[in-house]
């Protein structure tokens, strides 16, 4: 009789434990759990194809990441550069030709670290070059930037740095460095905010007066 009582007691306890451990629908849980659970069988339906339709894009693969970036050469007004730069820069120096690019002032690192040819290939103006003198296509200019700005490069590859071209669904199309930063002066300048809330300022003033 006693054992029977104990077994039935244990049994009810077990049932209660099982019932309590079962998660109820809609029960509070961390968002990370939800992402993991619901993302398991992910198959997205939406695409950004339509939004990207008007933009010339090229596909790049860097490490584990493959994505699109805007094509660049077609956007440069005076490309190809050798139409003017028919000779290497060293030979064109001192010639009494019309001055071009007179408005470009290099404000990037300092003169000891960088000059024009740190990025531009003086012998083949149609290309950029790495520090070690390897040619880099203008479309892949991020490779030049990535030599020094390695942490920004990591973030950009993952998607933590920079902007998207359009839309959030795949395929991923990210702006490349030069779409936001002018490589000759890459810093963002200080400026006035684009909006000021006069109503809020008034309210605050009234609050202070009371």
């Amino acid at each position, binding site marked *: 009789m006693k054992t029977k009582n104990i077994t039935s007691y244990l049994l009810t306890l077990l049932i209660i434990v099982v019932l309590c451990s079962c998660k109820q629908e809609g029960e509070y849980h961390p968002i990370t759990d*939800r992402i993991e659970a619901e993302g398991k069988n992910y198959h997205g339906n939406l695409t950004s194809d339509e939004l990207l339709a008007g933009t010339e894009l090229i596909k790049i693969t860097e490490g584990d990441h493959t994505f699109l970036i805007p094509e660049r050469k077609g956007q440069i007004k005076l490309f190809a550069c050798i139409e003017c730069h028919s000779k290497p820069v060293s030979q064109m120096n001192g010639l009494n030709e019309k001055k071009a690019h007179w408005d470009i002032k290099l404000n990037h690192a300092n003169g000891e670290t960088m000059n024009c040819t740190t990025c531009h290939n003086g012998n083949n103006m149609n290309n950029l070059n790495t520090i070690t003198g390897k040619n880099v296509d203008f479309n892949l200019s991020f490779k030049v930037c990535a030599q020094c700005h390695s942490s920004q490069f990591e973030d950009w590859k993952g998607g933590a740095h920079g902007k998207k071209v359009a839309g959030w669904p795949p395929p991923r199309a990210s702006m490349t460095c030069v779409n936001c930063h002018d490589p000759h002066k890459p810093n963002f300048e200080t400026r006035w*905010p684009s909006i000021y809330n006069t109503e*809020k300022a008034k309210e605050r003033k009234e609050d202070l007066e009371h």
Partner: protein
Amino acid sequence: MSENKKWYSLDLGLSKNKKTSSSCGCGKTSGGCNNHGTKNTQPTEMSSEDFFEAAIDASIGDERHRDGFEQVFDVKMDRRTAFKKLTASLLIGAGAVSTSCSSFAGDDTKEKAQIDWEEQFKGNYKLMTNEEKQGTINRLMRSYELRTGKNISMTAENAEEDVLFGYAFNISKCQGYMDCVSACVEENNQDRNSQMQYIRIHEMKDGEGFKFDNADDNYYHEVPAEGHFYMGTQCFHCDNPPCVEVCPVQATWKEDDGLVVIDYDWCVGCRYCMAACPYDGRRFNWSKPQVPENEVNKNQHYLGNRMRKKGVMEKCTFCVQRSRKGKNPACVDACPTGARIFGNLLDPNSTIRWVLENKKVFRLKEDLGTEPKFWYFMD
């Protein structure tokens, strides 16, 4: 379709298929007049005593235990029946009015009255079928056209499968330019009179941490200001939203893609949600929102940027009219510094997932258990 509806919608004789109503003039759903009794199923073989009992049950039911006052006032009536009675009587009045006025009123006026009437008695958007959603946005579009002579395009896209929206904000990148705020105001048709803004950019002193009391969210000087950093707040679209919990009329809820939305036509303006939100994410229309006609964004969503009215809540919807079409919210597109990252949390290859997995992210007031889908991070 109409059989499964969870609310009563007004039939002004537009749909001809009138179902034979189970209600009768007596005003009760379960007995009370003799018309109901005969409908109840009775077994064919029944003793006369049983039959007598059943007949009494069917005809007066509970009421044989009650009398007088209780019988009259303690009537079992759900909301639907109550509305039925109410609208039925109103309908008669309105019918009379419309027929008597028909010789004076133009077709437009009549149509407008019809639209207003149907809008007045439509159900909660959350419970609508797709056809009903389409119906209401068609009415709203037509109503706008009748009132202003201009066309708007309004949609009612539902949440897409396998989508859960998330947002990340890079504190190191934000420079306080406020381009996001102005883009948001333009996109979402916010009231220009009260200068309502969903987004706040807080200017905080370096080295003092997050002190919202000391922060300035309405600065006007060149930015970024020396010795300050900037961070933005807006609706965080919590996964466990306290604002939804407190709404007494269920006018706000969480959609399947994680957006916390408001049915502006169901909101009663009690502002409980505003008090419940720990993040100052909700705004109230103290007056009728005013947007100059030429500045109205005409690409609208029922749950998003359509024109609001006086006395209702509104807030950031992650630009539902854009995000459900695959676009980024206006603030994300407008930000010149790339501080704002938006995407699908369920897509393992999305950039937002990379940020969550590879950057040191945190959320505001995490200990409240609200589970915001809005993360902050630094370079």
